[in-house]
């Protein structure tokens, strides 16, 4: 049970593996704590001593410069020491198992693992095997979850719109393969979003999947955008096209690309989001990505504050639980 693994005996965040099943109070605590960390990033000295003496290992078995950088910066702004371990240089290529790698890093007194892995469930697997004082944060696993991305999106919506409750939020793109979308849907629904719509071709959003996630499926972009307060464009994974699940990039843009003209269907004060990096002219046209309604760069800034909040919460559980 992810929930049992993620929370300690007193209901506090022990690991952060998925937004699914976490109580609203915990998600709100992440958002509230991130508000204070956002203030820190505006100071002359952008650093607080909270995690001084702690060591964070970024274990990236899948390449991602942006996510790794924001986790690294978040840890450094909390005064932690950071190890960056990428699959290409790790012993994983020499036949060492995932668990061997973790055991070795534990023996080097690492206090936290940020894990990105192509296999769904990799972060859960590590969390089940680490020592009691070690915390695990999922930095994206397979198609499963990307919880810090979802929380930085929720944080951005709350800061820009003033609330999440009651808002109509449209998520556009490859929902089926997107760990970002899954985590967003769970987080936004728990936080009280009014209606979460997902816009995707039928091949990428079976009706049963939409029903299970509690979202409204829309086949057409215009339908999904109608009256939306927030439009979240997902990054298109080009390899899905090779699998014939999607038309060409050009055709995709014709059908699902966000343009100024299409955005007119959303509310006049609607905001546009994207987890990055953007495929310009595929998911979104540059005029929209760089336009006044885009909050894409604010998402990046907020990502550091949200990751600082999660890191401080999972390591700040107190002696009784943490060992």
């Amino acid at each position: 049970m992810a929930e049992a693994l993620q929370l300690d005996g007193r209901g506090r965040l022990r690991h952060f593996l998925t937004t699914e099943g976490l109580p609203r109070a915990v998600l709100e605590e992440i958002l509230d704590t991130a508000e204070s960390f956002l203030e820190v990033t505006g100071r002359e000295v952008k650093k607080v001593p909270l995690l001084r003496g702690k060591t964070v290992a970024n274990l990236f078995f899948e390449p991602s410069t942006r996510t790794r950088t924001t986790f690294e910066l978040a840890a450094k702004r909390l005064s932690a020491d950071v190890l960056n371990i990428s699959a290409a240089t790790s012993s994983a290529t020499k036949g060492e198992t995932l668990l061997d790698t973790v055991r070795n890093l534990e023996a080097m007194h690492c206090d936290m693992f940020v894990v990105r892995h192509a296999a769904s469930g990799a972060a859960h697997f590590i969390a089940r095997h680490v020592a009691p004082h070690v915390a695990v944060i999922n930095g994206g696993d397979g198609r499963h979850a990307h919880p810090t991305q979802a929380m930085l999106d929720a944080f951005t919506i709350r800061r820009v719109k003033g609330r999440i409750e009651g808002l109509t939020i449209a998520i556009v793109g490859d929902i089926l393969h997107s760990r970002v979308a899954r985590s967003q849907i769970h987080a936004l629904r728990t936080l009280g979003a009014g209606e979460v719509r997902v816009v995707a071709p039928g091949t990428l959003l079976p009706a049963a999947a939409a029903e299970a996630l509690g979202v409204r499926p829309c086949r057409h972009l215009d339908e999904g955008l109608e009256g939306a307060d927030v439009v979240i464009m997902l990054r298109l994974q080009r390899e899905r096209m090779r699998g014939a699940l999607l038309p060409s990039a050009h055709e995709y843009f014709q059908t699902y690309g966000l343009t100024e003209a299409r955005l007119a269907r959303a509310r006049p004060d609607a905001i546009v989001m994207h987890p990055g990096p953007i495929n310009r002219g595929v998911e979104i046209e540059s005029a929209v990505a760089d336009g006044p309604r885009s909050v894409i760069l604010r998402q990046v800034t907020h990502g550091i504050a949200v990751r600082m909040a999660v890191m401080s919460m999972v390591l700040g559980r107190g002696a009784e639980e943490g060992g």
Partner: protein
Amino acid sequence: MAAEDGIEAALARMAEALRARLAADAVARPLMVGIHTGGVWVAERLRRLLGLDTPLGTLDISFYRDDFTRIGINPQVRPSRLPFAVDDAYLILVDDVLHTGRTVRAALNELFDYGRPAAVRLAVLVERDGRELPIQPDVVGRHMALAPHQHVKLTGPEPLALTVQEG
């Protein structure tokens, strides 16, 4: 149990002592910084009594606590707000109760992450025994002698009241 009242008199004494201190330091427009939560309430009252028109700064020292690994992060942490430049400023740091000195130490560390003030004076509503660090206030509203197991707590903001709790 309720401590004997007299908060208004204590605040008046603090304002008087601060006026004298400011005159001695030849400072006309000091900047006041309250430590969340009680220190902010006390600072607001002192600003009114002194007629200060400079904005009030507020500090939440949660990220600077030296017992973070033991007690964890405060779930009610609020952003600190210093709506002025700290460099070369004359600051009055205000808290409700001075006990071990660890909160003030954390507040000083945080202030210096905003810049290098010219001077920091410390004003507290209640000074009690039990110091664990070499920190002493410049201005005190009242002194209280309490047993180690007793804690004094300020409730407010309107009205302000002090209560002594056991254990």
